[in-house]
């Protein structure tokens, strides 16, 4: 299956989820547990995406090659924790990556 078809299939599935309850009979109600999970899915997905993105970058590389990416993410976590600002993650993380890459190359 090509990337095109995968995106189209995922898009159709997403659309069906969107209109599922809009077009359902009024008496159909969602389980409470499912409603409780709504706010948690995005956070769990984001955490899993961070880890898999990072793992995809560093797995198969040497410790020296992996260090800039790993440290950049750690710096981002610390920066956001200290400032409470979401944008601090990119503003602190990317420069940390650039500096460490420059150091490890030389």
């Amino acid at each position, binding site marked *: 299956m090509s*990337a*095109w*078809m*995968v*995106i*189209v*299939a*995922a*898009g159709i*599935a*997403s*659309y069906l*989820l*969107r*209109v*599922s*309850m*809009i077009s*359902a009979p*009024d008496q159909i109600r*969602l389980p409470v*547990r*499912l*409603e*409780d*999970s*709504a706010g*948690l*899915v*995005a*956070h*769990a*997905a*984001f*955490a*899993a*995406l961070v*880890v*898999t*993105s990072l*793992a*995809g*970058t560093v*797995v198969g590389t040497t410790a020296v090659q992996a260090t*800039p*990416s790993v440290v*950049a*993410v750690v710096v*981002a*976590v610390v920066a*956001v*924790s200290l400032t*409470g*600002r979401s944008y601090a*993650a*990119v503003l602190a*993380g*990317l420069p940390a*990556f*650039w500096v460490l890459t420059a150091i490890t190359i030389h």
Partner: protein
Amino acid sequence: MGPWLVGTIPFGLVIGVSAAEANIPTFVGWLTGPLIYAGSAQVAAIGMLDGGAAPTAVILTATIINLRLVIYSAAIAPYWRGTPLWWRLIGGYLLVDPSFTVGVERYSRDSDRERGHAHYLGGALVLWSTWLLAIGVGAATGAALPDWLGLHLLVPLYLVGVIVPSLGQPGVRRAVATAAVVAAAGFSLPMHLGLAVAIAAGVGAALLPATSRPTASERSDR
């Protein structure tokens, strides 16, 4: 909708850049915008396709991430009763976190449904067009930027910025910690299923303590 747009534009740019960097046609990455139209699922789909994940794993993961849309759909459905089918199909297509929040907020404080519908549709269309434009700009510029910029880190860093401020909530903390650990442990799972398993484990871990909490009758026994 204004504050939502401010947060949406950088995320759209990041997704566009990741689409340009990924090992798939850039236009296919951009297409996740109008077709999947939900940032986190788009990031997952692009990342997994880039990593060579099996098609079923990509579709499954995007669907799991977007399961929350069923809840949005159920919550907004009462306000759309009596509207024509075409309205519900178009309104449903535009249903995503910001449009849902802005729409329900307006419906709940304004009894004039027609004005509420106009507010929802107007805001949702502005969001949709801004989102697609932001992804397009990111995709167009991302491919031209040099490798040393480390743009492959843009998505994880952006997501760190979204996650960390929410860690004060115990449920979110459990979901994040569990999902991160399971994602690391399941990184080598076949078909890249680790992502879907990690999300399910994270949500499960966050909900689990609620079932072990003492019930009202148990508390009164003490």
